[in-house]
């Protein structure tokens, strides 16, 4: 608490000015102060705020704690109680009184340590030791579980019991330490470091059973907090009961309200593990099985589709079509040839029906007949002519005037054969005459006439 600033001389102030300056001064200078004193005149107004006076043997100061802060007090303020109050100064101008506006109040005795605690907490917080980002996840299955606690007390037994129950073959490494009293903090810090050096310790439980704030105090020490922060394995703090929050709790990767709770946090029950793994295993089995099966169905379905399975048959059908066409081709061509052959055959028969020989024979008959008739006709004509001639020639023969000559007569002609000499006188001697006899003629000379 520094001395007030000197007031300039000869500067006359109004009361109000003075009061304001005092107020400003007090309110800027006494922002967070700790005051120790005895409570008196404690009186809760109907606003819920608590008005009281802090006094010691020589002085007193008026104070107020507002309802909002009053709620968080871990004790009930009563007259006569010695307390340490934290707050700031303010001025009640109408009466020129200053008063302490209390933000926090503790029973006296804890005060110094609390202050140290708060300061440490603030420092560590500023260093970032409490940052959520520093918090490491716990191993799912720690190979070895470190325990830093007292061999006495129920805490260790509880932890062991719970771990064994959950995970029978859990491997525990215990670092026995004192957990209260002088030097306990250093021992705990050393223990944490020692555990940190044991291979395969994947998680460390640091803690103790419940007790008074003094009993738990070792876990508020910086040395412990730093040891926790530096631990290579994540640390679970398990100090006291739920209401006690220690520095160790702030720094630890996880805070458990009790050692038993810490044990439960450290390891999931083995059965649950096995169940979980098997369930995962079953799920991948089922998933892959379903996949293979669906694939198999798909393959079989597509392989069995008629378009593929029936393909050879369809090719064969094409073959049948080709065969049919080929057959039709052959049949039709042969039919075409056959038709032609038959037509030709018919024509041939018709042509053969024209018997040239017979035709010739008929003609020959006609010719021969004609020839015969011709020959007959000419022969008859000749005979006719011959007969005609015969008849007339015969008659002529019969009428021949010389027919009598056969009987010995003769006809005497004049020499020129123009006249028949009927009387001797018609000729004279020496004159030539001709005598026609029955056969032949005689040429003669008249030798004499008579």
């Amino acid at each position, binding site marked *: 608490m520094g001395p007030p600033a000197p007031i300039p001389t000869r500067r006359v102030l109004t009361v109000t000015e003075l009061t304001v300056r005092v107020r400003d001064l007090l309110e800027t200078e006494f922002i967070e102060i700790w005051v120790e004193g005895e409570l008196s005149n404690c009186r809760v107004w109907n606003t819920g705020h608590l008005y009281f006076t802090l006094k010691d043997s020589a002085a007193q100061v008026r104070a107020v704690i507002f309802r909002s802060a009053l709620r968080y007090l871990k004790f009930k303020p009563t007259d006569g109680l010695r307390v340490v109050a934290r707050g700031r100064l303010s001025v009640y101008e109408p009466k020129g009184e200053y008063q302490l506006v209390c933000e926090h109040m503790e029973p006296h005795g804890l005060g110094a340590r609390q202050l140290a605690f708060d300061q440490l907490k603030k420092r560590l917080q500023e260093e970032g030791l409490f940052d959520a980002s520093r918090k490491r996840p716990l191993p799912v299955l720690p190979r070895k579980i470190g325990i830093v606690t007292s061999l006495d007390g129920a805490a260790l037994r509880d932890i062991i019991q719970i771990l064994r129950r959950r995970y029978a073959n859990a491997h525990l490494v215990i670092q026995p330490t004192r957990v209260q009293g002088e030097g306990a903090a250093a021992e705990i810090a050393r223990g944490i470091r020692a555990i940190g050096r044991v291979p395969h310790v994947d998680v460390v439980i640091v803690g103790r059973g419940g007790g008074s704030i003094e009993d738990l105090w070792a876990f508020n020490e910086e040395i412990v907090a730093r040891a926790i922060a530096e631990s290579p394995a994540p640390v679970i703090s398990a100090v006291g009961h739920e209401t006690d929050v220690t520095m160790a709790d702030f720094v630890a990767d996880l805070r458990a309200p009790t050692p038993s709770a810490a044990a439960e946090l450290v390891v999931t029950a083995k059965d649950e593990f096995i169940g979980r793994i098997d369930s995962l295993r079953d799920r991948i089995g089922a998933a892959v099985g379903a996949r293979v099966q669906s694939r198999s169905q798909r393959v079989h379905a597509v392989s069995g589709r008629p378009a593929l399975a029936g393909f050879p048959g369809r090719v064969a059908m094409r073959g049948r079509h080709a065969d049919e066409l080929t057959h039709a081709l052959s049949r039709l061509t042969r039919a075409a040839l056959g038709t032609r052959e038959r037509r030709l055959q018919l024509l041939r028969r018709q042509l053969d029906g024209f018997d040239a020989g017979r035709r010739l024979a008929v003609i020959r008959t006609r010719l021969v007949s004609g020839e*015969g008739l011709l*020959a007959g006709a000419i*022969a*008859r004509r000749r005979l006719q002519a011959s007969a005609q001639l015969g008849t007339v020639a015969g008659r002529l023969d019969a009428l021949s*005037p*010389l027919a009598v000559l056969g009987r010995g007569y003769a006809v005497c002609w004049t020499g020129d054969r123009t*006249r028949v000499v009927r009387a001797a006188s018609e000729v004279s001697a020496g004159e030539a005459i001709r005598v026609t006899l029955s056969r032949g003629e005689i040429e003669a000379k008249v030798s004499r006439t008579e």
Partner: protein
Amino acid sequence: MTETSIKDFEAAIAELESIVKKLEEGDLALERSLALYERGVELSRFCHARLEDAERRIEMLNERGQLKPAPPSLTDD
């Protein structure tokens, strides 16, 4: 003998018949009948010659061309 030309067989036959007729009627002078007779003989010879000629020609044709004599059936009618 008057060598009067003879036209043909038929004319000869006709003249011959007329001569025969004349001769049959008689009353002809010997000379006339002799002349007629001789003319008749001439005509007769002419006719014979013609007939022979015809026969020869027919025969010749037949020989040359193997003209078959008409079968009896044809000549009989």
